[in-house]
């Protein structure tokens, strides 16, 4: 019946829309999000890489640190490189400069990218939200000082800042913690909270004039409670969208730093959780572009995929959380 009478079905769908059980804003946004094909694809790719990162030790076919003598830069079995080296069936994507399995190293590399994408984003969101809220809500001189500070940080070319920090502090105590990951987090967070703070401040400035905030104040709700229970939930939408766009930016930054040789230190310790990153792999792959291009290609494809996935998800989230924004930009 449904196929023969589309008009009736549409009518039923419309009626269902009118008489459906009430749903929360979150459920509403979610149903809009999963109707967006591109963002569903994005979510699938992201989940795939998260699983890859979490279970790298189970998924990786070889030990990513095992050095195979005399098997440097082997091409993958399916690839006819310009060199005459015979590929080995064990190494699906060939080997690197020390004869280590590329596929396994790429799988382990996902760990760094995922962690660098998500953890600084969480820090940035917290820092930016708190500073932006206080700046917007309190106003006055404090607001002025904080906003001038963001102006200055804005003017600093951020990639250059990361490079300086990573070069100078690499051998310091902070730079040695977790192969330099902590220093990277700190550098990324110091710069990137600014845009979140500006976003939140703008939201707060417009929301604090609204009637519901006035009503809350009238019945004697404390400032902190107004900020976090009344204003924050209403500015959550733009925050979530900015988080979705922040993650790929951070992943790209890490890849660039790794490619310049100033990212995470490659580990040779088999018990280490973070062994190598995609950026470091690309740096390694540059030297054998003709014989074994997959050392360069595989991590590059991974970076491109993850970044695209997050962009699609971010676009979808923006449409879902604020339907008025649909189609703009």
């Amino acid at each position, binding site marked *: 019946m449904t196929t023969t009478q589309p008009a009736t079905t549409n009518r039923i769908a419309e009626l269902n829309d009118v008489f459906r059980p009430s749903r929360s804003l979150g459920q509403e946004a979610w149903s809009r999000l999963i109707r967006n094909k591109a963002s569903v694809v994005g979510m699938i790719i992201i989940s795939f890489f998260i699983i890859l990162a979490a279970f790298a030790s189970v998924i990786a076919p070889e030990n990513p640190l095992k050095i195979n003598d005399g098997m440097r830069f082997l091409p993958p079995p399916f690839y006819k490189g310009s060199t005459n080296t015979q590929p080995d069936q064990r190494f699906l994507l060939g080997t690197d400069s020390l004869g280590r399995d590329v596929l396994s190293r790429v799988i382990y590399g996902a760990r760094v990218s995922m962690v660098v994408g998500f953890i600084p984003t969480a820090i940035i969101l917290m820092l930016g939200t708190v500073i932006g809220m206080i700046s917007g809500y309190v106003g006055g001189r404090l607001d002025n000082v904080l906003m001038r500070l963001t102006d200055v940080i804005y003017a600093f070319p951020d*990639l*250059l800042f990361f*490079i*300086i920090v990573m*070069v100078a502090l690499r051998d310091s105590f902070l730079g040695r913690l977790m192969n330099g990951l902590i220093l990277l987090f700190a550098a990324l967070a110091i710069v990137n909270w600014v845009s979140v703070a500006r976003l939140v401040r703008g939201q707060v400035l417009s929301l604090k004039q609204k009637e519901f905030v006035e009503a809350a104040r009238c019945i004697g709700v404390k400032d902190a409670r107004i900020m976090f229970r009344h204003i924050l939930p209403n500015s959550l939408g733009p925050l979530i969208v900015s988080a979705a766009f922040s993650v790929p930016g951070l992943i790209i930054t890490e890849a*660039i730093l790794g490619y310049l040789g100033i990212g995470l230190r490659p580990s040779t310790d088999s018990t280490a959780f973070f062994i190598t990153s995609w950026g470091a792999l690309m740096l390694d792959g540059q030297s054998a572009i003709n014989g074994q291009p997959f050392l360069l290609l595989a991590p590059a494809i991974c970076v*491109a995929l993850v970044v695209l996935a997050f*962009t699609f998800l971010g676009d979808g989230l923006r449409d879902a959380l604020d339907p008025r924004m649909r189609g703009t930009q």
Partner: protein
Amino acid sequence: MTTYLIRRLFWLIPVLLTVSAVTFIIMRSAPGSPWDTDADRRQVDALTQKSLEAYYGLDKPMWRQFVGYVIGDWNSQTDKFVCGLVCGNLGPSYRQRGRSVQDILFAAPENQTFWQSRFGYSVRLGLSALVFAIFIGIPIGIIAALKQNTITDYIALFFATSGISVPSFVLAIFLIIIFGSWLHWVDIIVDDWTQVKYWLMPTLVLGFGTMAFTARLTRSAMLEVLRQDYIRTARAKGLAERVVVLRHMLKNALIPVITILGPALAGLVTGSFIIETMFSFPGMGRAYVQSIGQRDYSMIMGTTVVYALLVAVANLSVDVIYVFIDPRIRLEE
């Protein structure tokens, strides 16, 4: 207008001062001396290190080093005043003995023009990438908007989205492997940059992201203009479609596009260091990356200050141009 310009120019001073102060503090807080490990891993003995430190003024207190870097200081050996950053002196390079940072960045090889200097090369690359981005991006945006919700539009949008999100160095890897290594259409290793054909790949790679962004921005700006009443009026009075599109739509749709050009150029000049390294392009960015590898602190610092100045000036110039092209903008906040 003049007051506004002067105020904005003065705002550059604290910005640049902060940038150089932050860079200076971070660089100086690096553990150990810059000569702990030399470029060629030669251990420098204590006496040489002391004289090197005296030569570069590193034996002075931190604040004096900074003042010396920004304004100037008396040279301890010759007792002459050496002007600092304010006179465009970025100090001696730690690794390339006998050369100053500004010399490495801005001086052209003998008998050659300014455009042959490292900075000149980078500016030329940035400009050609910008020209590519504008002349490809804007037409794509116009066509996509005029054919909204058709397959052309979707293809253009998909390319624009991927162009914006996929970073240029990843794109460079794909193109180098496909066109250089597999198809042999282009040479991967180039040492003669006087030939125009070698500029094609770096220009394309560097400009692709900006091109995609320009296309998307043009499209959305065009879509907004498309439904305006004056467009309907223009059509109603029987103007040719070409005139409607070019004179009535595009003129208004380009305003948001022009605002991104300044930051885009700054981004292209400052963001090109990875592309320059990949294509072994003799520009400022490659010198910067090399100095990172050699831990040449004064070089890293000097380049950062130059980059920061470029970004600040680019942003300023956009704000000024904006006033001229859009009479609706008022500067008096």
